[in-house]
């Protein structure tokens, strides 16, 4: 079978499983004796093994198989969880991640056998004695059944029969069958998409099943299946004395059957029996209960989510954008027709809601990025010999998928910095009267149309004098400049290219490439970053990102005869300022806005707009915010608030100063979006 078309699904799912493994391992490190974690890790290893085997990734399969052997011994209690074991498991995780990385880049898993890790796993296994053979072969057997499944059905959620409800009659039948020594099997059968006469296949399948046992329930109903009212799969429940393997063998031998999933089903009544702990078949019981909990886990999500290619969403988004442009076009048509105006308002409501709905589809909780940081802190803590703890909050905060994909690296950088530069070594902390353990805080929250991510630590804080000296020494600023600079100006120096204050270059950070890259990346995403610091108390890096990237609310303004858009989320308010109220300080215009001194930016000058000189008594000033900073943009006229679709200017004009992008107005004209970041 050609599996290449499933590669993406494989990668996507493997990543999720590895993420899960990562989280669980970290939890387990704190609470080694919790059986749930072992079970979860076992399940993940097992699933990855099945997936890798189907895709033909032999080395991954071998590694996960050996992991599984060890884990299964832990589950039976033959081996206890030790620090060494956790280390090996972390190594396994890293190895699996690098396999996946290779698969993403090259399409195959490479030649790395990871023999040292496998040896360590085997050593652990050998260290506890040679009793496990029986259970080992047992896991191996179940694996064969599962490994031959289709990749898209390896996930437990595809075992639809595990999540199906039973009515009392069916339950009774099952309990009775059990008492009489029969087993109830749940079977989900996937028929090939290319199958022409699905009902005919289903008929043959039913005949085969009837030979094996008695069918007590089918979903969809037998009638619907005969009428071909099913997609590509259906589930049946059969009471039988045969083994699951026999079911699997007989059913897969039927032509055009893509996959068969078989599991013994236990009814609710018996589950309670299990919790009373009958010790006849403890191992099997545990398996059963695992499957039950898995079913419970997957149930809420499995039936309600769909995995969609991001390209399709982008496409949908583009169409919504087009629709909004058309709507804006309709709005500009002068019309006195009441009915027409009402319809346009209606259309506007729909497009706005449609846009919101599509945006929500693209939103992903930031948890996906945050999840890897506990591990990062753990490794940092070991490498740097600093005791540190990570506190996270707001993992559920949602961001656009494209932002999520890009924000990881800058955050890794900031967290490394926090651990390496920010936090002092333990001895220094104790000397300063602080607890030995340093804290790193990672918080995300939504603030209006922005999402804010804060990376903070309770370390030494940024030594402003040191930064100043450093900047003077490497010629970044002159003495005069240094004297004129405020503290926040000096901190901003840190974001300049090739600026690092650490005296020694470490493995972790301090190579001088860093904060400027972080800043560039965040600005590319339409956001900004600022720092707050207190000497001896720590620093906080505050990242502000727009909720969406594609469509924003903007204020359209006129400068001369040209139209420009200012993103609404940056605007604080609009003021009418009398010319006499504009003051000059060192040749720079300022206004005093209710006690705040706000610099005035003459947009027509900066943008080289040809304007007619006319004498006016007052000017319209749009006050914008960038972090703590404010500026007042002088404009010649306000057009109004509008929903605009952001379009890039393309490769040739992408780096144009002061311009963040463009948009198409209702009449087809192109208007440019001002880059508030570079103007303030």
């Amino acid at each position, binding site marked *: 079978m050609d599996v290449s078309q499933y590669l993406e699904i494989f990668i996507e799912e493997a990543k999720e499983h590895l993420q899960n493994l990562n989280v669980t391992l970290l939890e387990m490190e704190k609470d080694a004796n919790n059986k749930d974690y072992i079970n979860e890790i076992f399940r993940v290893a097992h699933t990855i093994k099945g997936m890798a085997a189907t895709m033909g990734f032999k080395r991954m399969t071998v590694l996960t198989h050996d992991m599984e052997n060890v884990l299964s011994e832990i589950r039976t209690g033959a081996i206890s969880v030790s620090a060494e074991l956790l280390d090996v498991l972390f190594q396994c995780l890293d190895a699996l991640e690098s396999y996946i990385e290779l698969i993403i880049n090259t399409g195959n898993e490479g030649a790395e056998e990871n023999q040292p890790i496998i040896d360590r796993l085997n050593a652990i296994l050998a260290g506890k004695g040679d009793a496990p053979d029986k259970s080992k072969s047992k896991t191996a057997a179940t694996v064969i059944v599962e490994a031959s499944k289709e990749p898209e059905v390896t996930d437990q959620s595809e075992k639809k029969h595990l999540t199906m409800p039973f009515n009392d009659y069916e339950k009774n039948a099952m309990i009775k069958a059990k008492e009489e020594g029969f087993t109830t099997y749940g079977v989900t059968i996937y028929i090939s998409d290319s199958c022409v006469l699905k009902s005919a296949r289903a008929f043959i399948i039913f005949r085969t099943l009837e030979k094996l046992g008695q069918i007590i329930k089918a979903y969809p109903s037998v009638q619907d299946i005969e009428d071909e009212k099913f997609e590509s799969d259906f589930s049946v429940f059969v009471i039988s004395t045969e083994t699951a393997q026999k079911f699997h063998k007989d059913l897969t031998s039927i032509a055009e059957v893509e996959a068969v999933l078989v599991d013994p089903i236990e009814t609710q009544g018996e589950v309670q029996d299990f919790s009373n702990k009958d010790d006849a078949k403890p191992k099997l019981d545990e398996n059963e209960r695992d499957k039950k909990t898995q079913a419970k886990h997957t149930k809420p999500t499995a039936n309600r989510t769909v995995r969609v290619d991001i390209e399709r969403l982008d496409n949908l988004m583009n169409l919504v954008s087009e629709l909004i*442009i058309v709507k804006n076009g309709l709005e500009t048509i002068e019309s006195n027709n009441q009915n027409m105006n009402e319809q346009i308002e209606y259309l506007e409501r729909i497009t706005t809601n449609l846009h919101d709905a599509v945006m929500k589809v693209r939103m992903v909780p930031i948890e996906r990025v945050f999840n890897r940081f506990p591990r990062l802190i753990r490794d940092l803590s070991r490498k740097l010999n600093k005791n540190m703890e990570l506190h996270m909050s707001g993992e559920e905060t949602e961001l656009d998928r494209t932002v999520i994909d890009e924000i990881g690296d800058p955050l890794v950088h900031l967290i490394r910095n926090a651990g390496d530069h920010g936090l002092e070594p333990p001895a220094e902390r104790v000397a300063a009267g602080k607890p030995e353990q340093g804290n790193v805080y990672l918080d995300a929250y939504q603030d209006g149309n922005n999402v804010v991510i804060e990376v903070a630590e309770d370390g030494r804080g940024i030594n402003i004098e040191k930064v100043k000296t450093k900047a003077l020494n490497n010629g970044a600023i002159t003495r005069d400049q240094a004297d004129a600079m405020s503290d926040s100006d000096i901190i901003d120096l840190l974001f300049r290219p090739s600026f690092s204050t650490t005296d020694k270059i470490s493995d972790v950070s301090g190579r001088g490439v860093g904060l400027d890259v972080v800043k560039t990346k965040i600005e590319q995403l339409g956001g900004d970053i600022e720092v707050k610091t207190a000497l001896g108390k720590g620093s906080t890096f505050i990242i502000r990102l727009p909720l969406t990237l594609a469509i924003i609310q903007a204020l359209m303004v006129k400068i001369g005869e040209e139209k420009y858009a200012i993103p609404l989320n940056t605007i604080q308010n609009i003021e009418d300022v009398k010319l006499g109220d504009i003051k000059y300080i060192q040749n720079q215009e300022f206004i005093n806005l209710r006690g705040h001194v706000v610099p005035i930016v003459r947009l027509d000058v900066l943008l080289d707009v040809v304007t007619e000189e006319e004498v006016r008594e007052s000017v319209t000033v749009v006050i914008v915010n960038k972090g703590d900073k404010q500026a007042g943009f002088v404009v010649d006229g306000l057009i109004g608030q509008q929903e605009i679709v952001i379009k890039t*200017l393309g490769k*040739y*004009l992408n780096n144009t100063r002061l311009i963040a992008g463009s948009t198409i107005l209702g009449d087809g004209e*192109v208007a440019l979006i001002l880059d508030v970041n570079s103007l303030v």
Partner: protein
Amino acid sequence: MEVNQVKTVGTTQFIVVKFDREQYGVNIQYIQNIVRMMRITRVPNAPTYIKGVINLRGEIIPVMSVRYKFELDEDVYTNATRIIIVKVDNHAMGLLVDEVLEVIQLSEDQIEKIVRDSQDEKAKFVYAVGKLGNELVTLLNIEALIGVDE
């Protein structure tokens, strides 16, 4: 006026455009579209040869002045003015031309490569001369022409 990539064995098709009295040929394989003059939005701080951007059916495309690159007089927009949309490496660019004349086919022996005069900045925008009867057509090196200034 959609133009597809056409190539017969041994010959190459060019669109002939006019500036003042001179004729220039643009290899048809670069050309996506030829559109009438439309409203161009000026982009502040863009390179001088970029006149601005246009909206071509929802796509934002920069438009450059070929005249500026060849150090000719300023563009004068007339009824004959056209914007030729060319695409290099999937990035589109509009070229302002005074007039589009015709499509010609040149066989290899009608194309004479010219030796580049390294003194002349403009020379790199031209890669050959096409001979069609008595007429001479200067063939443009589109990549060099629209390349972002070094």
